[in-house]
């Protein structure tokens, strides 16, 4: 299921809200202040954070154009697993806690809304044909890490998608690759949790059309302490709140390639 949209000059694209409604509020305010024409979200509205239903009014009120992530697909379909793609037992232990909490605290109406989202979106950004996906164009939960995504694969995916620019998320860490043939791949990052660099801010991406594509990663500061306290009140694992407070990932680490893992604390 994909959807053909119109033409734009400047857009904001965010990924992985993970129920972080405070970061979502701050991100939307920042994006509007930058004069973007539209805001897109590449999926995974829930998971990890508290009070999953708080993100949906914000997404609707601001007209955010979403696509489905694996979490959204699982919630909408009533699956018992988030479909995150972890293989390690410790990663899966925390993923299961997070998914159960999110499933139990997401309304039927919001699950149905997630179920109606498209899997991909296409648009024109100036002359550039853009494909938006969650993990990769071929698999919703494929991890495309910077150190583990070769140029040959990107060319292959862009060829098959008939696109000049591919935008994805899912891993939680942003990156941008300009290929020698002037095509681009951008992992837009996530706003749900910091990116394992010891800083508490989160990131989204502003893309501006020109003869070449301009890609700007935007840091967003928000009241992370308030979010951490909400997580504690909801009895989410203390390891989750620690990540919000410190900027270091404490869970879901085993899926990281060596290079990204070496940059973190754990």
């Amino acid at each position, binding site marked *: 299921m994909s959807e053909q949209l119109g033409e734009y000059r400047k857009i904001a694209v965010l990924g992985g809200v993970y129920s972080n409604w405070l970061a979502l509020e701050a991100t939307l305010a920042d994006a509007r202040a930058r004069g973007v024409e539209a805001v897109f979200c590449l999926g995974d509205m829930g998971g990890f954070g508290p009070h999953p239903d708080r993100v949906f009014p914000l997404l609707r009120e601001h007209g955010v154009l979403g696509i489905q992530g694996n979490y959204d697909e699982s919630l909408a379909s009533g699956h018992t697993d988030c479909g995150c793609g*972890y*293989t*390690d*037992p*410790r990663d899966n232990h925390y993923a299961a806690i997070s998914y159960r909490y999110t499933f139990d605290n997401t309304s039927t109406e919001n699950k149905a809304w997630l179920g109606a989202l498209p899997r991909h979106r296409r648009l024109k950004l100036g002359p550039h044909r853009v494909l938006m996906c969650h993990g990769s164009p*071929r698999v919703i939960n494929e991890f495309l*890490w910077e*150190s*583990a*995504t*070769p140029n*040959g*694969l990107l*060319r*292959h*995916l862009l060829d098959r998608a008939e696109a000049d620019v591919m935008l994805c998320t899912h891993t939680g860490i942003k990156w941008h690759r300009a290929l020698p043939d002037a095509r681009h791949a951008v992992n837009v990052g996530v706003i749900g949790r910091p990116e394992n660099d010891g800083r508490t801010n989160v990131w989204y991406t502003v893309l501006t059309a020109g003869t070449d594509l301009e890609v700007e990663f935007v840091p967003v500061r928000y009241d992370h302490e308030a979010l951490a306290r909400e997580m504690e009140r909801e009895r989410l694992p203390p390891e989750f709140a620690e990540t919000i407070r410190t900027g270091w990932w404490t869970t879901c*680490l*085993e*899926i990281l*390639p*060596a*290079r*990204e*893992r*070496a940059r973190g604390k*754990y």
Partner: protein
Amino acid sequence: MTPPLLAPARAASVPQAPFLGLTALWIQITGTWCNLECRHCLNASGPRAPWLKPLDAETIRRAIAEAESLGVKEIYFTGGEPFLHGEILALIERALEVAPTTVLTNGTLIDAARADALAAVAARAAYSLEIRVSLDDPDPSCNDAVRGEGAWAKAVEAVRLLHARGLLPIVTATEIASEAGPAAGGLHARFRDFLQAQGVDRPRLKFMPVFAMGRQPASGETPLTDEDLEGFERSTLQCADARVVAAGGVYACPILAGLPGARLSRGSLVDSFRAAPLYHPACVTCHRTGMTCRNS
């Protein structure tokens, strides 16, 4: 209604896994040539006259170049013991120009100088280098009963050396030494605790089932039938998006490399892009456990 005299004939055809595209290229670089002779080795690798010959560097370079043009996502070197190959470092470096690369090793040939060389290659590379070191139990005697005298000490030293250089090796274990069966949870915790006690503060682990083949006694299990696979998503099998270059051609999966029944091409990778026959009892293990030889 009279029951039929004969039961319906079982489908005579071998079930197949579809091919979706090349995600993982495996290179059986040393064939079944190894300096160890592990009791559970699935392809019976060892130090004497390997039944599957090592590959020459030119064949490997050709396969890597072809894989790049086909959009490969990751490259793996396995064997045998890859560090017995005289050109292994140069070939790892070449592979890393194309894709993130993993080497599966028993660790016994990684000393400080080799760990330094690997760290230098990793630092220069565009993509991640992963080293997977096999260790079957945190206890030396349990491990060496399976892998041979002295294997534990050398493998643990390799893990320490690599970790100290920031390469963060993935310790790969089967459940054979602990006799723990499917209780991977307990084994997982034991390995984590053990590695942390060794100063490996970011322990990375992968567990594999034991395959009833190679040096292990055959299970006598009946190969899969289409009936067994009803309702099962065959595209989740690793032969749906992996291919193995080994002596004699291109094979469907790393477990079956070198076996004529698993050979899909005698030449190019692209010629092997067709459905793989799920003919071997090992396919039952993949189907039952959902295992993959990939890192994750």
